[in-house]
């Protein structure tokens, strides 16, 4: 016996999905699977970022000095690097969304893996270009 798996929840659809989940692995690393997951995760990351972005902008309502202090803080190289990551995620999410819209609304194209790869390269290019602009 090498592995034991018990399903304590008994019968039912959710239960058998849990019971068989551990068997599936290995094929979920395809480029298009990754494209869908990256699209979702980048969306979550951007959703987490947005409240901080609004808090930052909200400083302008408090006083010009506080906003200026925060703007000065963005000159930190680490913050600039993080901004590049943000632009990367934003572009990735935008292109991921376009991918879904293309799939769902235009005629099918078999070159989707190429498109997903190009989307990553495109997002990286935009992010690096952004970094070059702000450094």
């Amino acid at each position, binding site marked *: 016996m*090498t592995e034991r798996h018990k399903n304590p929840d008994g019968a039912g659809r959710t239960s*058998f999905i849990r019971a*068989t989940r551990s068997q*599936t692995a290995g*094929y*979920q690393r*395809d480029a*298009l*699977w990754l494209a869908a997951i990256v699209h979702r995760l980048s969306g979550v990351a951007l959703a987490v970022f947005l409240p901080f972005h609004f808090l930052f902008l909200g400083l302008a309502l408090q006083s010009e000095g506080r906003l200026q202090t925060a703007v000065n803080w963005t000159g930190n190289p680490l913050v600039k690097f993080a901004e590049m990551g943000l632009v990367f995620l934003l572009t990735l999410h935008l292109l991921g969304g376009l991918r879904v819209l293309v799939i769902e609304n235009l005629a*099918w194209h078999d070159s989707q893996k190429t498109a997903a790869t190009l989307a990553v390269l495109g997002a990286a290019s935009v992010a690096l270009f952004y970094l070059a602009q702000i450094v």
Partner: protein
Amino acid sequence: MNSSIKVTIWRGAQIGSYQSYDVPQRDNQTVLDLVSWLQRHVVPDLAYRFSCRVGVCGSCAMTVNGRPRWTCRTHVSKVVKDGTLKIGPLANLPVIKDLAADMSPFFDQWHRAKGSFVPSAGRHDPMARVKPGSPRRQAADEAIECINCGVCYAACDSVRWNADYLGPAALNRAWTLINDERDGGNDARLKAVSGLGGCQACHSHQTCEQLCPKALNPAKSIAGLKRRALSAFLKGAL
């Protein structure tokens, strides 16, 4: 060839365990050959399902080293890893016993997707003339060869995440009928595949396309259904 393979096989139903056996390795041995050898020589009560053994019936699909496959068309030498092989029942389906999955939920989704042909003419009407080169005929042709093996259903993340999702095979079937000029049930069918768990629940991971043993592309069929549903919605027909 005198070497042996360490095979771990799911024993039990919903509750069970993987158990290990040594099976002699043969030239040109398929995974189904291996399972059959085990059942005939070591574990006579091992439950599994097969029929044609040549990739026609689609009944022998199992999870082999984490990936759903037809065992009759999978050579052991192609999938064995470090001399070991892990074989389980198809995922996303209840387990009846050992390697035999209950296909009932899979076929229930076919019914929900209205996967049966609805004649629009009677026996006394003239025979329908469908041009082989027409776009609808060609769209149906691309998807028509499904043999219901359940590999796409077992591989689909959306099926795993969403209990209501109809699944790639049922939606692929609906797409072939929607493109069948003779069918008279498409209004109801389009509503069925656009409702709860319908085509919009597909996340376009395209694992179904990647793993379909018949090289079909259910993701393309589902994308076609999404377009058709959107068009019907904009026209107020949905």
